[in-house]
Structure formats: structure tokens, C-alpha cells
């Protein structure tokens, strides 16, 4: 018993053996391909199909029902194979008879048309199509599109071109895309090479037979749209990742070789790590760890981009090995990070604090609270203030200084300080109306920590004002730190150094930085300064307390930053603003 396949040829039903069906199908396909460039291809094909139906009917007569391979062979012999059709139909596809009499008829030049190259594409084949048209390297255009992407118009331009440019489907179109002459010879060559390509990839797929069926099924319209979307997303993600990788690479290099200034203006990152890493863990440990952790993602990103832009494959042994190596390196790096991280975490286990009370003048009832203005890391840095006919001038011993001075009676505020050669940090700043400018915002984060002479300086200082229990104003300084045990934490808290001065006239000048031995490591060292005010005492918050006032209770629930520059009096119900009338 042999199964047959029913087909409809020229409106007639035929039963075909399996092999006969395949032979007939491939014959019709070959015909279709051969006639691709001929006007009225559909009509010719249907004429030929009718003729085949007729021939088959003749052969079957009334005795047989099933068309065999022999019948198909006979039909093919009668009609001839596409190559036997001769150069006739394809050679001069649109040339009618009368044109051969036209004296102005010129020999046909190979013509070029703009098509999308579907077979060499990243997203829609627009770039490769344009590249083929101008005979460029598609990579140039892809990079161009990527650059345009950042200007925003690139996406739109691409989509418009995608819609406008037809896809090069047929062999003739693919030849026209590359400007090769469309002749039987070139078409045959093209078809043969592409057939070989397809055959090879089919051979590959047959190894994974299930995959090949799945792949064919997804060639539906939806599947193609989805794949195009996936390509776009992958394209975007890989570009984003590439940018990230470059950024990470820059930072890592800066971190390893340079001074870490990319991340933080507050001194080297390696210094920060020195102050964070547990005792006994060298900076080399941190460096190796960082390199290992980053190597996996960076290798992955590089491979992804190679694939996206150069069509390289992951599954080549070298890429696979590289990927495996990256993954292993990242795992080892993460393990190292975990080991040291756990160690650090245990040193944050318990906290402890030490309380100190500062002596205060008894007769004073109005207080001025401010931060010490200038903190210089560079011990050799000095400021000289002088005057000339333009007004006040400020000189420093560093070159390239660019200072903005604001002098109010009794104090000097330095706004923007930018001194390149030496490393100079200034912590005091003047607050004005547009303080929350972006530049000022950056400014306020400058110099929040530094290392000097084996001591670490941090600005973890909080200032609060609370009602006093007795009739006397008092000032307390509480130094906090964490540790593995209470004893450990207490020891650390005790080794914190913090200075402030209280003048007899009631000016309290706080230090914005606390410091401790670098060997203690940063384990949550902080200082809380509390001014206890009895009812009737008043306090003025200087603008320099910006970022240091912490949640000061007041009767109008004003935010800390807005409390600056105002005078407040302690009333039985709480701090109340003293308004100047």
C-alpha cells in the first residue's frame, strides 16, 4: 500500500505518488524561479500547469488513477526543463519585438535598485541594502545609524527607510541590489551559490531535526515581526551594555591605575576601600576581586556586540571558552566579595557610643551655631586676602585658582573653588537664593571624606537642638561606632576625634569632620551634636550648617534646610522662629 497525494492542476484533481509529487513540485518551483523576471509570470505558469494537467490526463487515459514518477518524467520531457527553455524568456525580459527595430535602443546597462538585504541584517537590513547600493561596507552605515540613534532622529529615519525600501526577495532583485546584470548566467550562478548555502544550513539543521521544524514554523508573519522586535531590543540592549562596559572599563582603569577621580572627587577610591576593607585584607585583594567580577560581564558584552555588529557566532569554540572563563572569573570574584563582605558585615554587628558634655558660658542666652568654614586637605595651601582698586582679591599659593568671594562682616565664604594642581578641599559654602543649582548640589557633595596622616576624616556629623530639662543650656557630643562586639564598638567610638569651640559670647563653631585612625576602618563612626536650650534661649543657624542639621523639632515643622539663616527661640511648646519686624 502506498499513500498518494492529491493535487489540483488547472482545476483538475490528480492523485500522485509521493515521489511523483515531489518531482512535480520541484519542477514547478524551478519553472517559477526561471520565470521570475518575465512579465505575466503567473499567467505563463498557469498555462503550463493546464498543459501538464492535459498531458497527465492523456497519459492516465481511463485505466489508471494514480500519477507515477514515470508520468512526471514524461511530462518534463515534453515541456523541457527550465534551462532548456533557453535564454529566450529571461534574456531580454521586457524587450518587445518592435523595440528591436528602434534605432535608439541602447544595450542594456546593469541597473541598481535600492533593496533591503534580508539575508545580511541586524534589524531590518536597511543598512546592508544601502551599503550594497553604494558598494560600501555595511558596518560604516550601521555605525552611522548608531550615531544617529543618539540624536533621536535615527530611529525614525530607520523605520521610514525600513517601510519604504522593498525587501530583495528574488534572485533578480538581489542581483539588482548589487548592480550585477540580470542574465540567465548570473541568476544561475547566484541561485547555485545560494542553493548551496541553503543546503548547507539545512544539513546543519537536520542534525537537530526538531529545531528545523520549529524554525520553519516561526517563519509566519507574526514570527518575523517578533524576531524583528527581538533584534531591535537586542540591538538597544547591546548598545546600552557596550556604553556601560566602556564606562565600567574607564572607571576600573581609573580605579586601578589612576586616582579614582572619576567616581569621587573626595580622594581616591582605593583610599576609600582601604578604609572599608577588613583589617588584613590588602587593596590588592580588592583589585583582583573587582577585575574578576567585571571580567564576566565585559566578556559577555563584547561577545554580544561582536555578534550584533559583525555577525559572529557564540557557539564557536573560542567564544565558548572565553565565555566560560568569564563566568568562572566572575564567580570567583563574587566569592571573594562575599568572604570580605561577610567579614565587613560582622564588624557592623553591634553599636556603641560615648557621651561628652561641653562646658558652656552661663551668662549667654543667645547662641550662634555654625560650621567651621574651611577645611584644607593640602597642608601647604594658604589663602591671603588683600585689596586693590578692584576690591577684594584672594591669592593662593596654588596655580590656576579661580575663586568667588563673598565677604560678610566677620567671615569669609568661599563659593566655587577650583584649584587644579594641588588637591584642595573646601567645606564651607555660602548659601543664596539659587543654592539648589546643579553645580551647587555637586558642590555640597565635595569633600565628604579624605585620608590624611593615617587618619580618616568623614563628615558624619549631625546637629540637633532640643529643649533643656534644667534652666541651663548645655551641649553634648555623642560619638558612635559599630563593631564585632560591644567592646570593639566602644573602643572605636572612643578613638573618634571631634573638635568644636564655644566662645564666651555664645558662638558655637562646630567642625564638619570627625576623624579616627585609618586602621579602625569606617565602621559607622559618626558624631551627634545636641544643643539643649532652656525656654527663653535663642539660637541662630548659620548657612554653613547646610547638610548637618538633622531633624530639628520646631513648632511649624519647618524643614532643616529652611531653618538656616533664621533665629529661633525655645518656647514651652518648642522652637519658634523669631521674626524681625
Amino acid at each position, binding site marked *: 500500500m502506498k499513500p498518494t497525494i492529491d493535487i489540483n492542476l488547472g482545476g483538475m484533481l490528480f492523485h500522485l505518488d509521493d515521489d511523483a509529487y515531489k518531482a512535480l513540485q520541484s519542477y514547478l518551483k524551478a519553472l517559477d524561479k526561471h520565470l521570475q523576471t518575465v512579465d*505575466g509570470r503567473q499567467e505563463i505558469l498557469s498555462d503550463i500547469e493546464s498543459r501538464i494537467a492535459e498531458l497527465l490526463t492523456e497519459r492516465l487515459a481511463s485505466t489508471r488513477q494514480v500519477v507515477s514518477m514515470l508520468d512526471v518524467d514524461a511530462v518534463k520531457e515534453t515541456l*523541457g526543463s*527550465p534551462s532548456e527553455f533557453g535564454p529566450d524568456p529571461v534574456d531580454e525580459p521586457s524587450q518587445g519585438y518592435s523595440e528591436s527595430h528602434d534605432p535608439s535602443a541602447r544595450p542594456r546597462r546593469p541597473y541598481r535598485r535600492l533593496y533591503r538585504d534580508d539575508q545580511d541584517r541586524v534589524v531590518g537590513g536597511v543598512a546592508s541594502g544601502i551599503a550594497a547600493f553604494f558598494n560600501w561596507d555595511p558596518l560604516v552605515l550601521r555605525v552611522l545609524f548608531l550615531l544617529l540613534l543618539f540624536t533621536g532622529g535615527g530611529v525614525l529615519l530607520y523605520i521610514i527607510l525600513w517601510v519604504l525600501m522593498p525587501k530583495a526577495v528574488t534572485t533578480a532583485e538581489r542581483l539588482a541590489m548589487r548592480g550585477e546584470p540580470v542574465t540567465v548566467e548570473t541568476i544561475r550562478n547566484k541561485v547555485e551559490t545560494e542553493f548551496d548555502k541553503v543546503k548547507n544550513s539545512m544539513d546543519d539543521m537536520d542534525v537537530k531535526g526538531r529545531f528545523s521544524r520549529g524554525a520553519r514554523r516561526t517563519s509566519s508573519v507574526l514570527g518575523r515581526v517578533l524576531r524583528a522586535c527581538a533584534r531591535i531590543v537586542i540591538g538597544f540592549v547591546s548598545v546600552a551594555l557596550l556604553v556601560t562596559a566602556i564606562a565600567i572599563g574607564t572607571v576600573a582603569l581609573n580605579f586601578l591605575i589612576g586616582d579614582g577621580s572619576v567616581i569621587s572627587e573626595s580622594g581616591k577610591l582605593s583610599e576609600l576601600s582601604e578604609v572599608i576593607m577588613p583589617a588584613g585584607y590588602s587593596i590588592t585583594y580588592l583589585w583582583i576581586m573587582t577585575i574578576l567580577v567585571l571580567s564576566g560581564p565585559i566578556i559577555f558584552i563584547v561577545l554580544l556586540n561582536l555578534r550584533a555588529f559583525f555577525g559572529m557566532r557564540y557557539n564557536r569554540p573560542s567564544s565558548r571558552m572565553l565565555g566560560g572563563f568569564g563566568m568562572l572569573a566572575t564567580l570567583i570574584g563574587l566569592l571573594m566579595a562575599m568572604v570580605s563582605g561577610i567579614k565587613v558585615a560582622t564588624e557592623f554587628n553591634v553599636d556603641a557610643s560615648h557621651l561628652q558634655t561641653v562646658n558652656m558660658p552661663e551668662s549667654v542666652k543667645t547662641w550662634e551655631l555654625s560650621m567651621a568654614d574651611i577645611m584644607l586637605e593640602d597642608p601647604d595651601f594658604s589663602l591671603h586676602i588683600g585689596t586693590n582698586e578692584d576690591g577684594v582679591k584672594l591669592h593662593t599659593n596654588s596655580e590656576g585658582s579661580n575663586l568667588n568671594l563673598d565677604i560678610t562682616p566677620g567671615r569669609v565664604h568661599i563659593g566655587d573653588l577650583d584649584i587644579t594642581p594641588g588637591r584642595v578641599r573646601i567645606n564651607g559654602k555660602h548659601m543664596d537664593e539659587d543654592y539648589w543649582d546643579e553645580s551647587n548640589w555637586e558642590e555640597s557633595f565635595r569633600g565628604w571624606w579624605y585620608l590624611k596622616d593615617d587618619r580618616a576624616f568623614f563628615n558624619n556629623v549631625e546637629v540637633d537642638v532640643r529643649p533643656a530639662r534644667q534652666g541651663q543650656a548645655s551641649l553634648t557630643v555623642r560619638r558612635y561606632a559599630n563593631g564585632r562586639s560591644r567592646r570593639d564598638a566602644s573602643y572605636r567610638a572612643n578613638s573618634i576625634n571631634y573638635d568644636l569651640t564655644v566662645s564666651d559670647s555664645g558662638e558655637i563653631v562646630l567642625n564638619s569632620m570627625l576623624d579616627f585612625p585609618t586602621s579602625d576602618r569606617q565602621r559607622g563612626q559618626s558624631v551627634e551634636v545636641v544643643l539643649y536650650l532652656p525656654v527663653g534661649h535663642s539660637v541662630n543657624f548659620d548657612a554653613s550648617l547646610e547638610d548637618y542639621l538633622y531633624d530639628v523639632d520646631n513648632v511649624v515643622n519647618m524643614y532643616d534646610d529652611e531653618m538656616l539663616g533664621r533665629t529661633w527661640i525655645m518656647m514651652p511648646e518648642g522652637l519658634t522662629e523669631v521674626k524681625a519686624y
Partner: protein
Amino acid sequence: MRKGALELCVLRVVKRGEAYASDISKALKAADLLVVEGTLYPLLARLKNAGWLAYRWEESSSGPPRKYYKLTDNGSQLLDSLNGEWDQFVNAVNSLKNPS
């Protein structure tokens, strides 16, 4: 040249009376002008599209409906002029064969 000759032949066959593709191919094959039938179909389509041939459908008792081709007025004119050209051409070629 062969293409032009084949077109002329097809026109001449159709000139004798309405014919469908199979008739034409039989006639051409009989005259040893056609090797395989397939060549004929693109040619017929082109002549039809150029307006030299027209066709009508006719049901067939032994297969699908057939297209019967006939010459249009344009086609008749073309055939006349082609016939003239062809004779000139043949004479010219033949005159070289028997030098006088």
C-alpha cells in the same frame, strides 16, 4: 535570431486558424522548430501582452479548459511586415550561398 524566427512561426501557425498551445507546439515540433514545449508558453504570453495575439477560453472534454489563440489586427499587420522582412533576409542569406 532564433527567437525572432520562433515568434514568426507562431504567428504563422496562428494565422492558419485559431489554435491552442498544444496545436501550436505540435505544428512547430512537426517542422522541427521546437525542441521542448515549455519554450512556447512564455512566448505566447509575450505576444499576447504585446497585443498581437488574443485568446478565448474553450471547455475541453479531456482536460482543463483551453486557451484558443488568434491573430489580432495588429498581429496581422506585424505578420505581413515580418513576412516581408523574412523573405528579404532569406534571399540575402541565400544569395551568399550560391555566388553567381
